[in-house]
């Protein structure tokens, strides 16, 4: 079958990866105070299992999963619980949080748990172990991984795609993980193969990370059902739907999930984490984060404990005093930080910092002149121009019923290309949440 190894439309924003893609992952210092919100993932928040004043060991369970769509939270440091109090999150919502004082004298040895033997464990046991390790999608969405890997009744998984695309500008964490943790990735793939029952694995990597592709290819054995596929660079290829189209030439049905076309997609860093944690029965304590942007001195890829306060991070890396904009995630799909009192969470893939001089003042918004640039950029072939006009007239239901609003995964390509500087993706984010709210109210 003829495959183009790409998807329709899309954009080519400046990549800005060259400043950090050559820097090895380095351990970040421990902050004296760790602040852990209990809602770091999509789903219901974790339930706190510790009390104020309690001494905890690095790797110890602090909060347990509160249901199926939930994951536990482990202590990233050895120390003492100072208080349990609501903390701010990036969305602006306050959630319960654990303030943890680090013991300076501790060796920070990690508590070992029950190892998961790849040969003996059943698929269900592996799923349970992934949930117990507190693993969520590390690409940024923070969706509980075990829930994604659970194959629904009547469906089956043929192909497992490991997502090493990292199309978001500036970010180089997945790139570094592929270069430095290939053993963990292949160990993770073994667990994933067993639990999903997939027959083959394709590791998708964009052409700008040729060294990572070569490195992983070096680990392939002829008998493994694993291949590495390099695809041309284009944003937003790292999204599940576009990636499946690029690699397999299939389309996920509107409103459906990858499993509807017998595919499961897992981020490469998540895969490495599964491969790293499960053999030791540990939980997530830290993650790799790219810190970069023109407003920061010590750019790099750092292994940072979850719960490290953003202020501490900025201090350590020498962020510009006149910093004006910080994105958690990348500039395309990340979220602009409005409160410096938040901390690093499991879904934080990068921190991009701009100082005053490199941020353009907000551009004036002009009316839509229907130039069609957004129509030619939308990877899902939606009509952002029409959707934008309907959003302005608050015709949210019409947007959803006639123009596939709910398919939008907020990649921001439309806003990026709009010559009138219309914040289309922001309109759609809002419209989607209004439609969801109205639907649940009805």
């Amino acid at each position, binding site marked *: 079958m003829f495959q183009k190894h790409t998807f329709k439309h899309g954009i080519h924003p400046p990549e800005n990866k060259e400043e950090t893609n050559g820097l090895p992952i380095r351990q970040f210092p421990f902050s004296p105070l760790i602040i852990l919100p209990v809602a770091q993932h999509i789903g219901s928040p974790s339930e706190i299992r510790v009390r104020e004043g309690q001494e905890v060991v690095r790797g110890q369970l602090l909060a347990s999963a509160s249901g199926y769509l939930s994951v536990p939270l482990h202590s990233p440091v050895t120390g003492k619980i100072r208080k349990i109090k609501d903390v701010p999150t990036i969305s602006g919502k306050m959630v319960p949080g654990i303030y943890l004082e680090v013991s300076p004298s501790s060796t920070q040895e990690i508590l070992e748990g029950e190892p998961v033997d790849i040969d003996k464990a059943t698929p269900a046991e592996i799923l349970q172990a992934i949930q117990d390790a507190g693993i969520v999608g590390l690409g940024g969405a923070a969706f509980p991984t075990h829930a994604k890997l659970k194959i629904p009744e009547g469906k089956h998984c043929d192909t497992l795609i490991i997502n090493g695309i990292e199309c978001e500008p500036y970010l180089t964490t997945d790139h570094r993980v592929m270069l430095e943790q290939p053993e963990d990735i292949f160990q993770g793939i073994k667990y994933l193969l067993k639990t999903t029952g997939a027959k083959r694995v394709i590791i998708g990597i964009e052409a700008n990370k040729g060294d990572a592709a070569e490195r992983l290819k070096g680990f392939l054995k002829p008998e493994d059902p694993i291949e590495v596929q390099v695809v041309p660079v284009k944003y937003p290829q790292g999204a599940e739907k576009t990636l499946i189209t690029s690699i397999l030439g299939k389309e996920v049905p*509107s*409103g*459906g999930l990858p499993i509807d076309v017998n595919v499961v997609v897992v981020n490469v860093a998540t895969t490495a984490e599964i491969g790293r944690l499960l053999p030791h029965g540990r939980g997530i304590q830290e993650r790799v984060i790219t810190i970069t942007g023109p407003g920061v001195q010590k750019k790099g890829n750092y292994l940072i404990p979850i719960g490290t306060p953003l202020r501490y991070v900025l201090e350590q890396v020498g962020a510009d005093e006149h910093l004006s904009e910080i994105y958690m995630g990348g500039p395309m799909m990340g979220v602009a930080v409005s409160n410096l009192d938040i901390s690093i969470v499991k879904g934080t893939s990068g921190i991009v910092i701009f100082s005053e001089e490199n941020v353009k003042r907000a551009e004036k918004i*002009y*009316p839509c*002149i229907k130039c069609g640039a957004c129509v030619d950029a939308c990877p899902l072939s939606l009509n952002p*121009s029409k959707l934008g006009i309907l959003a302005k007239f608050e015709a949210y239901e019409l947007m959803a019923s006639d123009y596939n609003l709910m*398919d939008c995964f907020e990649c921001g390509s439309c806003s990026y290309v709009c010559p009138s500087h219309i914040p289309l993706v922001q309109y759609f984010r809002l419209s989607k949440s209004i439609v969801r709210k109205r639907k649940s109210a009805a």
Partner: protein
Amino acid sequence: MRNVVWAMLPIVGFAVYSFGFSALLVIVTAVGACLITEHALCRLSRKETTVSDWSAAITGILLGLTLPPILPLWMTFTGGVIAIGMGKFIFGGLGYNVFNPALVGRAVLQAAFPVAITTWYPAFLDDRFSSISSSVLTLPFMAPVVDGTSGATPLAAFKFDGVLTDASDLALGLTSGSTGETSAVLILLGGIYLAARNFMNWRIPLAILMSVFVFSGILFLWDSTQYPSPLFMLFSGGLMLGAVFMATDMVASPITSLGVVIYGSVIGILVVVIRIWGGLPEGVMYAILLGNALSPHIDNLVRHRVYGT
């Protein structure tokens, strides 16, 4: 948007060169009328003025380029006021107009002053820089008195007298016509500039010109004594100006690639139909306005297939 203005400047220059001061006055008046109207209407509706977005200036230049070089200035001014007021503002301003505003202005002028707007003037008169046609300076609400010579346009000459003009004269703009429609070469160059810089959807002019060429070519092959050659059709009248600068108004044209090809083909066919079988010698204006009216329907019918549906 200012790039559209840059692309039109050579055409304006040539219009002034071939028709003299009268043409300059017509264009300046049209632009002035559009800018004043835009500003006044914004103030009246207590909105921030949108004069600086260049769109009113573009409408003004386009309107000026479609008018005869000796149209009385008060009529030109009226056309500008109507273009912005009726063509754009009452629909909600830039981005919401259904029709190309300049053509709305011109259509109203055509209906109101059918004689004045079809009174043409020969190009390259010797005194074009030393005198201004008295017709241009006609007092408001008075009909112009045309002095001395008037020149039939190539299309009128063909329609009413059966006389064909040489295609090379047409291409270079050595003929009579509206101020800015005569030099096909300069218009095409402006269009290529805009298309190369991605400020214009090149599919629209291409579809219009192709459809005119093919349709009139079929007629010409059918009976070359009765129907004009496709080259004459391409280079005469306002077709080039309309195809490159008018029909490409993004707001009033469809948004998908297939949509604009349909839109352009319909306009091309209408141009030929009106020119050959209609009562008027020229049909570009009405063809584009009808195309504009069809655009929202084309957009509704021709949509991209959404991913996964």
